[in-house]
């Protein structure tokens, strides 16, 4: 849906998920090699890595699908 101009709202959402996902994924990878002194509960599940990856993939998909000029949304 492009009710605001040539850029779909879903494209903005894609950017948000992609950037946040990459930052969270990166943090998770860093923590994998630098285990914190006081890890969170269920640290062994490495939620940052898989949740960050899911958000980044979802966001990347949205960015590609709703790239301005493709006429989608």
């Amino acid at each position, binding site marked *: 849906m492009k009710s605001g*101009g040539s850029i779909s709202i879903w494209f903005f959402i894609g950017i948000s998920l992609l950037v946040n996902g990459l930052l969270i994924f990166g943090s998770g990878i860093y923590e994998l090699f630098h285990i914190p002194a006081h890890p969170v509960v269920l640290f062994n599940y490495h939620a940052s890595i898989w949740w960050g990856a899911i958000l980044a993939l979802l966001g990347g998909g949205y960015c590609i699908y709703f790239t301005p000029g493709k006429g989608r949304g």
Partner: protein
Amino acid sequence: MTLALAFLNTPRLVHLSTVDMVIIVFYFVLVLAIGFYLKERANTGEDFFMAGREMTAWIAGLSFLSANLGSLELMGWAGASYQYGILATHWYWIGAIPAMLFLALVMMPFYYISKTHSVPGYLKLRFGESSRALSSVCFAFMTVLMSGINMYSMALVLKIILGWNINVSILVSSITVAIYVTLGGLRSAIFNEVLQFILIWAGALLIPILGLIEAGGWTGLKARIAVNASAEYTHMWSTMGHFKDNPMGIHWTGIVFGLAAVISTGYWTTDFLVVQRVLAAKDLRAAKMAPIIGATFKMFVPFIVILPGLLGLALLPMKLMPEAQAIATGGHSYNEVLPLMLARYCGPGLLGLGITALIAGFMSGMAGNVSAFTTVWTYDIYRALIKKDGTDKHYVNMGRLSTIGGVAISIVTAYGVIYFKSIMDYVQALFSFFIAPLFATVIIGMLWKRASPAGGFWGLLAGTGSSIGMWAWVKMDPTALRYVALSPYAKDMAENMYRALWSCLICAFVTVAVSLATTPKPEAELKGLVYGATDIPSETYVSTFHRPWFWAVVVGTIFVVLNIIFW
């Protein structure tokens, strides 16, 4: 430097890392970027106040729900579920879903076909100027105060969780909201609400997932709650046979007739804050589908709000307590359960996203109030009562000015609450005074051709007046609770339910009585406004899967099944 120092004070619940701060700052940058991007599309009144009436059902539906996901929703209901158990889910299921479906199928055609720009605007068309004046002045006043309370709540939460200075939080959030709503109008508010909705889910969804893993699934969770509190905390209906049998002190009649039939229906169908989002839909079918889409997601919001509260009850090593006790003893209050669970599972990055979700929730509530205030102030008060002959450009400029004015009043309210805490209780009570009778006025106006302009006005006035009267009666004489709420054991929430029910019935009675004694509008003037005088477009040209009725039945069935499962 001063700004930086302001962040470094008071004890805090969690500590943010650099990556968390980057995520939060990125959120603010993106929100402002959307506002600047949409500035070019907010030049006419229709664009600025109604988002051009070109929103798809999905955008309108998510925005409809997101505008309601404010401070009370996220923190308050998570705390309520810790305190009252799964009973809090009633406010999401029976206290929302039937009302949303009713709005979609019964009321939306009249709002949409009448081409009104607001709920007070509908009252003007149906009952005349006096009804509009009464409802718009009350609504504008309440909305901007609620925005201030939202702002204060956010600043307080950020202070408790992060140790941030309250002044900085209020200024940063209010300036951000003022900029993006002033620039892009309702379209900007709606776009940001959809973004905020996605972020809320992205940031909060991990808590129930990891919490259920730790608790050993739903069965393990119930077993732990039975030990830590009581088995009744995981049942929605089976404990509601008597006021004393459940922690909320409420009877099922209060939930069904007070919450579901009056308060929730009134809120979801006549509170312009949420209805405005649906009025921006591109056509009638989208306007009918939007609340149904909103209802679908609303059914699952307890997963990220109620479930974390229950998980807190089962898993947190400390006992949470009421606000006053927490302040006195240095413990944690019920309202801190969500950030406590966030800190329990979320490391750097995830924590930043979770905090962003909270901030997004607060800001969407604040922006929703401000954009609704702007429309009602400009169209229903300024244009109707102060300057009737302005140009479209003049009203758009007034809209931008009133956005800034609304934010300024909100800031004043936020500071008022800091110094006079009871303001919060009064404003929330005032809001409830108005919504229940308004629902009776609107629904009678939509469904009964005989309802007259005088009946609409006097009914609304009598309903609001009686609600205030009952509230004052119980304040002055607490024993009056046995009459207002039907039981001396009833607690605040139960009193609210019954007061709403009585004021709605009084409004309906007066509206009908006065209407029968006065002259109704000619039928020709009711076209597009009332059932029986309006041609509602047929949907026979669309397939079953595209019909709002079909999806309403699907959502309604899931709603019934969920209630049976958690009975």
